[in-house]
């Protein structure tokens, strides 16, 4: 990517996102991609005066991720979307749809990860 990319970890992501907010950046969205069978990459996209910076977080899909919705309220929809589509949990989500933002409770297939099953919601 042409823009600046900063690598972050699960421990530092909230602090780095807070730093972006304090520096006057607007949260645009996140993009998630598959790194390998168990690994996911999440890019947090920020914008200020048309300049873009991305934070890159790489995690195992089974690991929960600290939510940044307490820093940027707008993150709540993206995090719920990632929860639905990649079966990743976010700790501290301000409004948690618990895997039913898009999906019906009886769904048992993770939409964007091949051959991964999930338990239906009760």
């Amino acid at each position, binding site marked *: *990517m*042409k*823009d600046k990319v900063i690598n972050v970890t699960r421990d530092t992501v909230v602090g780095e996102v807070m730093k972006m*907010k304090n520096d006057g950046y*607007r*949260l*645009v*969205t996140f*993009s*998630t*991609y*598959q790194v390998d069978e168990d690994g996911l990459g999440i*890019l947090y*996209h920020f914008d200020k005066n*048309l300049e*873009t910076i*991305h934070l890159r977080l790489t995690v195992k899909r089974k690991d929960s991720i600290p939510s940044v919705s307490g820093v*940027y*309220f*707008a993150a*709540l*929809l993206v995090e719920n979307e990632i929860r639905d589509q990649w079966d990743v949990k976010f700790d501290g989500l301000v*409004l948690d749809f618990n895997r*039913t*933002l*898009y*999906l*019906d409770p009886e769904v048992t297939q993770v*939409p*964007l990860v091949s051959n991964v099953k999930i338990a239906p919601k009760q």
Partner: protein
Amino acid sequence: MATTVIPFGPQHPVLPEPVHLTLKVEDEIVKEAIPALGYVHRGLEKLADIRDYHQMIQVCERVCGICSMIHAVCYSQGIEELMEVEVPKRAEMLRVIWSELHRSHSHLLWLGLFADAFGFESLFMQFWKVRERIMDINEATTGSRVIVSVNVIGGVRADLSPDQIRWILSEIDIVEKEVRALQDTIMNDYTVKARTVGVGVLSKEDAYLLGAAGPTLRGSGVAQDMRMLGYGGYAELDFEPVVETSGDCWARSTVRFRETLQSIDLVRQAIAKLPEGELAAKVKGNPPEGEVYTRVEQPRGECVYYIKGNGTKHLDRLRIRTPTFANIPPLLAMLPGCELADVPVIVLSIDPCISCTER
């Protein structure tokens, strides 16, 4: 005061597409709004696994009909950046012309729907009548009224003849005249202002921090427009973002009204600067390994595509962030404190496109 829970949607007269809001109301004042999505989610991003990267243009156009042209431009420019393809100048300017025609017909459609939301039926019909001329231009120049399908990776597949250009210029002159004739009503009419001024106010700071996009952001005083990036042919055109400062429904409608006239001006400028040359560069092979982040300005605001290639004809990942998705958190901030009767007007004021949101 007892709290009443009122469901808004998924089917509602002001909503062309289904979305649900759970409204918690006290004495007809909204205290909280919680959204429920997913009624029309289609999983289009997943199709990148099974459609090759050329076919995905047609899929991206179907994310949303009203801004189909601009979705295709965003996707194409992402792939072109990944593959280091240089798009001919004529193709870039033709993309601007069709993109601005899309923006103006989207805004005219919305202005009509907005008038309908507060019960001004004749104004609704007037805006839609004007819009028909733009749809006729789309049909005459591309063969389709809505999903024009002119983009290919590397350029465009359709051209404009000198006769067509003369006809477009005469048509948009009429469109401008007819739109200006409605200006006083949509911006100054007492009944319109009574339903829109001071309703659904979003402060400049909130709009920015909540990630608002497009007219919702600019109506709150933030001068941000992705066309300022100069993508495609926009670098050669002269324009300033349309900004209003009051942050209410009136401001958002005024931004869209003024942007309709701006789009007409941009079509004229693009036609005046339309260079001779090829329509498309030759594209060989597959997108290489790598990732791009690309964005454009749609009628509803900033649209973002993240594309990850892996060297095959399929993409590793296609992520689409549409403007309505960005405008839902600001909507949730606008609703608390409003009267129940104003909810349809406020919801419509962000120009919600649910098929975009749910892709």
